[in-house]
């Protein structure tokens, strides 16, 4: 090495250029492999976070459906059926839903954009919940509960959807 450094002989351009290209290519290889490893770690963390979030969403969904409706002898799940059969209950359902989720602790639905969706034969409603709302949400994670229908031929699907903004 010492001999090489002390050498006064110039490095020819035809030797220098391939050396630069090789160094550049190896750098790229290291970057790509590094990025790939990092990316797979991130994917793993995200998938764990997704499971955790889905558990939290399902928990919230079940508690929501079992919650009492103020001033009525009804649960929110009953109100969904009433709104499915008669649209006059829809404003009450929306206000009860908003009231229920706004009463949850502040950090409950704060990290991403969340919405509650109710889909039946006669009802289709999405209600934003939590603090972050974005119109162009993507990468949706869904937790859903199917409710039995007295009409037998369909279910009412109630879900909480989490999305990135």
């Amino acid at each position, binding site marked *: 090495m010492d001999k090489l450094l002390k050498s006064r002989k110039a490095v020819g351009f035809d030797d220098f250029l391939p*050396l630069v290209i090789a160094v550049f290519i*190896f750098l790229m*290889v290291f970057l790509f492999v590094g990025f790939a*490893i990092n990316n797979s770690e991130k994917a793993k963390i995200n998938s764990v976070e997704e499971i955790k979030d889905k*558990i939290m969403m399902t*928990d919230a969904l079940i508690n929501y459906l079992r919650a009492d409706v103020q001033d*009525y002898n009804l649960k929110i*799940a*009953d109100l969904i059926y009433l709104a499915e059969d008669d649209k006059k209950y829809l404003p009450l359902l929306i206000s009860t839903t908003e009231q229920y989720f706004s009463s949850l602790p502040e950090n409950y639905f704060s990290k991403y954009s969340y919405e509650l969706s109710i889909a039946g034969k006669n009802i289709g409603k999405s209600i934003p919940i939590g603090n972050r709302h974005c119109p162009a949400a993507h990468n949706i994670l869904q937790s859903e509960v199917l409710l039995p229908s007295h009409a037998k031929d369909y279910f009412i699907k109630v879900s909480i959807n989490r999305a990135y903004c």
Partner: protein
Amino acid sequence: MKTIKSKKAMILYYVVFIGILVSFAAFFISYFGKPTAYLQFEGAIQLSFINASQEAEKQMLYNDIAAKQAAAKTSYELALNGGYFGASECGQIKGLNIWSSKYVPDYKNNFLRLMLDNLDTILGTKDELLRGRYLLSVIDNSLVGTSKSSSTVFKTEVFKKEGSPDTIRYEYAVNPSFKVDGLTVIAELNDIKEFLQFANCNGRTDTTNCLSRAWDKWPKRESYSPMFAEVQDYKSEIEIKSKKSTLILKEGRLYYEPLTYKLAYSAE
């Protein structure tokens, strides 16, 4: 061979080329490919337990709702039938089941019989396992359904790898019981029975007058709106509407309104 024996430093481009290919492949697979099985981390089994318990919770919620709707249908049908399951043993007047001092329906038992039929219909095909498996009882204003035999089992698998024999399975079992609160029909039929005893119109030809006069003195009259109509001597038509709203399932639609009880009264 000449290249290998050469002492001059050089770059082996084919090695570089393979390296580039490998790194690109790693990048594209990690970026665009599906994430590898997430179950390979500490705490995965515990999370699977929570998942299974939530699946069970969903099933319990489904059963509770089905039971509530069946109770709403049963309440409506029983009120319309004057507390009877089908036709009364002592006959009908204008299609209304007769109550008298001798014939008072066992409405609590009739409610449970009708409820079992309605519950099976509403549980439908999704819960073939649960159909006809409940023991029902009415406690105060609640209906309680307990499973007759074994519990429902929710199976979950962890460490699932394609083609691997290392898959671990476990079972999460729950007893699919249910409870429907706020049942009004039994208490209200009790009130009607109590009113007819209070009126004590047995043997009176003008039953409608007798019932109307008794109504004005009955302590619980504020909770109901009555309608009495003369049918013939000794017999009256009675329609009593409650003032308390409850869930009613009629003709395939759910309503939140008071129950109306229809029956006939015989003073003979």
